[in-house]
């Protein structure tokens, strides 16, 4: 099968790129996502704060996703959900897998909009056991907001990036005891706006220059050892859940080893991690317009 433009990932960036390429005149676009629902991580971000730049309104993630999906429906962009892009090859072909079957696509241009993945605690030199009850922040967000899964009761957050802050607030609002947010740096890692909105009103302690040095509990997490990075002092803190916000890694495994071919562009979080969906979308729009224009002529 053939398509002029293949876009991998239907998050804020992939959809913005598709819309822009369509508007620029490209009429043969295939937008693919492994998820069943368009919007990437947006549907799980129930809080407001999306679309300020693009729509002049503070939307929730799902509302923002709905807006862009509606716009997409008015174009002729083909959307393949529940479809995994298994491989992208140097001869400008890609292999897609879904419940309907395996298919091979030949394309002219590829826009990678595959987002990012979260750094997991496994990458840190943390001692102790490996019990249940440890989740990444995005994972906890997906579990709570899309799956109705309850992550735990006595929660410690490791990492004060925006995601850590957002999850701290959400857990408090869900009736959980958020014991503290732990940060290795000297100050809050996330945006000041998120600190003011998510941490201050709920009086969640933010402990800087601190890290988790060990996990305890053979089956379910029972506590962690906290270490002060300046004094080296350690203390045992009981908790049953650890939510980690250790940073985001652009997801580019699909094109690893292909070098830097002229038919490939990156947009959104797989290009560089964006704090705001609007900025991921703006970047994607510019590239979508250029690539779409080149394909239209």
């Amino acid at each position, binding site marked *: 099968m053939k398509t002029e433009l293949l876009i991998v990932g239907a998050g804020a960036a992939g959809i913005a790129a598709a819309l822009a390429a369509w508007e620029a005149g490209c009429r043969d676009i295939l937008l693919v996502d*492994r998820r069943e629902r368009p919007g990437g991580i947006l549907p799980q971000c129930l809080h407001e704060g999306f679309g300020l730049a693009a729509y002049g309104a503070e939307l929730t993630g799902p509302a923002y996703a709905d807006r862009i999906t509606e716009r997409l429906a008015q174009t002729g962009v083909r959307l393949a959900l*529940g479809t*995994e892009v*298994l491989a992208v090859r140097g001869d400008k072909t890609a*292999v897609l*897998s*879904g*419940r*309907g*079957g*395996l298919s*091979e696509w030949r394309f002219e241009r590829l826009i990678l909009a595959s987002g990012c*993945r*979260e750094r*997991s*605690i*496994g*990458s840190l*030199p*943390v*001692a*102790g*056991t*490996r*019990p*249940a*009850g440890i*989740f*990444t922040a*995005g*994972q906890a967000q*997906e*579990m709570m907001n899309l*799956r109705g*899964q*309850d*992550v*735990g*009761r*006595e929660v410690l957050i490791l990492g004060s990036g925006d995601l850590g802050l957002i999850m701290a607030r959400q857990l408090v609002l869900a009736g959980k005891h958020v014991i503290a947010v732990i940060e290795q740096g000297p100050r809050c890692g996330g945006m000041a706006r998120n600190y003011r909105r998510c941490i201050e009103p709920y009086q969640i302690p933010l402990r800087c220059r601190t890290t988790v*040095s*060990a996990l305890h509990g*053979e*089956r*379910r*997490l*029972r506590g962690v050892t906290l270490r002060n990075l300046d004094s080296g002092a350690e203390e045992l803190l009981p908790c*049953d*859940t650890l939510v980690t916000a250790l940073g985001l890694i652009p997801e580019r*495994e699909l094109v*690893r080893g292909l070098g830097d071919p002229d038919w490939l562009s990156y947009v959104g979080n797989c290009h560089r991690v964006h704090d705001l969906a609007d900025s991921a979308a703006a970047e994607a729009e510019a590239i979508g317009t250029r690539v779409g224009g080149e394909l239209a002529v």
Partner: protein
Amino acid sequence: MREFDVVVIGGGLLGCFAARNLCRRKLHIALIEAREDVCTGVSRANTAIVYPGYDHKPGSLKAEMTVRANTRFAELCTELDVPFSRCGSLMLSCGERADAVLREKYRNGLSMAVPGLRLLSGEEARELEPSLAPGVRSALYAPTAGTVNPWELGIAASENAAANGADLFLNTRVLGVRKTAEGYRIETDREVFACRAVLNCAGLYADKVQETLFPSEVHIVPDGADYLILDRVTDNRPAHIIQYEPEDGGKGFNAVPTVEGSLLLGPSERAGEVDFAVSEQGLAFVRERAEFVLPGLDLGGTIRSFAAVRPNPRREDGSSIGSFVIEHPAPGFWSMIGIKTPGLTCADELGRFAAEQAAAFLNAGPDESFDPRRRGIRKARGMSWEQRAAVIRSDPDYGEVVCCCEDITKAEVLEAVRRGAVTLDGIKRRTGACMGRCQGSRCQQKLLALLARELGIPESAVTKDGAGSEVLGGRPHED
């Protein structure tokens, strides 16, 4: 009371292979495991090396079994449909003392007829493995060394034993063994078993189990070991198993390119409890060794660290024991106590050895219907695109990728549950899901929902690895 000819206690590698080999005879066999699944103990965490057989005293049981096991390993893995990578190994020396160790191992290997052994210079070693440290001055090359996933092998053996008629009793802890007129009574926390012979393969607790009836001359004194795992896309990943023999005579170090594609580094050596807890010093040691031996490795690609427990066998006086210990305190009773390296390599040989003794004692003839073959779960990853398209046509679940790091499909997960996975770790061990670079942060929640649905239990009852490790809802109240 249930009656069997032979009861095997413990569903680790050794118990699973003992059961499998007992099935070669006309015997009614029970395999009793305390946990909810097989291979959750020592067999879950080790270095995964299939040794060539030059490490032990020529002529010893260990040396002979290892060489024989290695020779048969590819055939075994074909029978059980388990991936085996005969990638070869390089044991490295950076000084005179280690040179001498390598020469001695080389001589041991020659006298045991280990195939293809070669002593290499540093340059020759770097030709085979360009990323080795410049300080490497000699190496022992063993082309027959390889690696296998230990739990995959053990699970395969348990499935094969079950298919050949062995009865598997999970969640059943042996509390004690009693002598009876006809044989033995096995008391568990569930029910009582009667049998004519016992193979005690209780791993870290084998001495304790034996001591419920007989004294044990061997005692297990556990210590700990730490490992790191690097992502499959690690630059300068060695193609061979790298083993380092340090000049100071301290603990050696291994880098193993696993069958999954990741790189396993370790172990450390330290005092430890039986709690599988990682030590910070141990991790630091492994990192330091890795940086020294393979300076081009980016340890930033670490995706996981874990701990293992060594069941060190000791005599009453505290002295350590180098050989495999198979105690035989009374007719019809055998214990494998403190079987550590190379117990994975020799699992089938040890199982066969123990099974043969029991069969001879019971005068059991061969069971002609024994089928050594087992089919593994068909993995989408690694299929040709044509094959993959065909399996999706016959089963659409093969089209749905659930673990995107490791490319594991829903069909594989469902099959794992059908084959006995009752926990998230059980799915992980049977399919490889959650073992990749995101460590399950994108798929664990999906697997949890699938598992609950398939088992017909609420999501809140799904555990990571058995009761008490519920994934949702926080700490159990009664805890």
